[in-house]
């Protein structure tokens, strides 16, 4: 499977783009010309436009926008990656558990998931975030991760169901393999692809959700730089200093696009109908 994926040119390209975004974000401490939270000069550098020293300008508190964007991307990516890890692990576990337990447990779990899916996610997030006083990174990851696994668990269970209908699972049962072994050795490797696709699409989604929460003031507590929080801070003087909003906005769009492209290319490369390994 991995050979199939690496063999696909579009996957390689999307992986490369995602790698560049991640490298830039996680090299923030070395790439940033300034401390992202330092008030450089409250008089001279208050919403100063792009210049040689500040390529993306400065914000209301005379902080360097480029540095804040780099750090903000790092925060957003970290939050997204960890949340997706939580949600995919939880979703896969619940989906597999529902199948393994079968019967009533399966029905109850899946009805609960349906119920959770029926609640608008943004409302759920608003309520939780509003009840929380001071949100740190771990809390944010927990909130986002714990509210986004329902969909994944549905996907996993649907994949498990279709894998279970395949005869190799019947064959494994007929050979006297245990359910756990069948689940881990035979079913899981065959549904890893769709899970991977869901995960990379999930990264893009969570970046958006996180930006939305921060924009509403329900994200990480200031002065931590996050892409959404930067847009929120910059919106009131968007006409005087558009660069404060545009820079994080462009980064959000690009990052989401890169991870969507990665998800799409993975989906294509894993689709048996696409004819396997391109030359």
């Amino acid at each position, binding site marked *: *499977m991995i050979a199939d994926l690496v063999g696909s040119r579009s996957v390689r390209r999307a992986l490369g783009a995602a790698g560049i975004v991640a490298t830039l974000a996680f090299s923030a401490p070395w790439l940033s010309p300034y401390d992202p939270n330092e008030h450089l000069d409250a008089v001279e550098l208050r919403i100063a436009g792009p210049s040689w020293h500040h390529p993306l300008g400065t914000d209301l508190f005379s902080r360097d926008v480029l540095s804040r964007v780099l750090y903000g991307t790092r925060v957003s990516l970290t939050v997204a990656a960890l949340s997706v890890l939580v949600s995919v692990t939880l979703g896969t576990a619940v989906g597999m558990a529902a199948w393994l337990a079968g019967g009533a447990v399966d029905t109850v779990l899946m009805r609960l998931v349906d119920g959770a899916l029926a609640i608008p996610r943004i409302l759920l997030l608003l309520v939780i975030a509003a009840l929380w006083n001071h949100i740190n990174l771990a809390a944010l990851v927990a909130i986002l991760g714990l509210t986004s696994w329902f969909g994944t668990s549905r996907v996993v269970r649907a994949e498990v169901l279709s894998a279970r209908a*395949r*005869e*190799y699972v*019947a*064959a*494994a*049962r*007929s*050979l*006297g*393999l*245990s359910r756990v*072994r069948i689940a881990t*050795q*035979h079913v899981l*490797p*065959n549904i890893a692809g769709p899970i991977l696709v869901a995960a990379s699409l999930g990264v893009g989604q969570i970046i958006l959700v996180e930006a939305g929460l921060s924009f509403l003031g329900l994200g990480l507590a200031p002065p931590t730089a996050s892409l959404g929080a930067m847009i929120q801070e910059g919106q009131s003087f968007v006409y005087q200093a558009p660069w404060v909003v545009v820079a994080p906005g462009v980064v959000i769009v690009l990052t989401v696009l890169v991870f969507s492209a990665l998800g799409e290319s993975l989906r294509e490369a894993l689709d048996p109908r696409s004819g*396997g390994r391109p030359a």
Partner: protein
Amino acid sequence: MTGPSIRSSAHPPIRPFIEVSGLTREYAAERAWLERRVTFRAVNDVSLTIGRGETLGLVGESGSGKTTLGRCIIRLIEPTEGTIHMDGTDVRALESATLRQFRRRMQIVFQDATGALNPRMRVGQAVKEPIEVHRLARGADADARVATLFQEVGLDPSYRDRYPHELSGGQRQRVVIARALSVEPEFIVLDEPVSALDVSVQAQVLNLLGDLKRKRGLTYLFIAHDLAVVRHIADHVAVMYLGRIVETAPAATLYGDPRHPYTRALLSAVPVADPKPGRARIVLAGDPPSPLKPPPGCPFHQRCFHPKKNSRCATERPELRVLDGAHRVACHFADEWP
């Protein structure tokens, strides 16, 4: 390892190796929300026996219940009613852990070898896994066993590192057979094992199955829709129609002197590779009835062409009765053919 409780046989000399009695499998039919639950019987009160080292050919058209019956016997599908004994062991009474161990003794080969192999597992590993799970061998010993099994089914052992999609259809079916043999079973359900294969490869696999049976003293339940294929491999044949066995006999008797009108029609419908005219064909009218609404009386009476057919056939279902020794037929007029 197999415990002594499984291996011991309660009545070894009296009971046949495989003994199935009154086996029934019900399914819930599709229904709309809140509608009354409707069930139908894919397999309906089937009894059969297979002697050790024998092959029973199970013949029927799609929807006859032959595949469900085969899978019920090895408990891949749980029967609704009935008993299954293998070598004196009550297979239906086995609890899940003991059943898993007992599966070593009964195996299945599927029609679709492609679907029966995990696409993400190398075929050598697919054959090795059950050997290790059942602790028959491990490490290098297990690898050696895999190599021997590959040779036994006519595959080059160097193929073990390939994935299923890198093999041809015939080679994949050989892998599935090797995997079934890896746990040293005594009984194998062969569910249309050659139907998906091309003629030239089909002959290879049929010959292989015959050789393996003789060499290892295997007992087969050979499920097929193709009577010519069954003729080549089966000692006894049972014909299924709408979930029931309608005729069963030693192969020579069933092919030489069929007594159920359905068997006669099936046999005459089989194309023979011989252009000489002279064979009178019986072409049945209509389609088999739906198992959801089996007709009253004899399940075959609507399509029946027996000259003695009368109103009794539409009301009273004929039981499977002994005609002569091992020849049993479910037809009121089985001995009244002109």
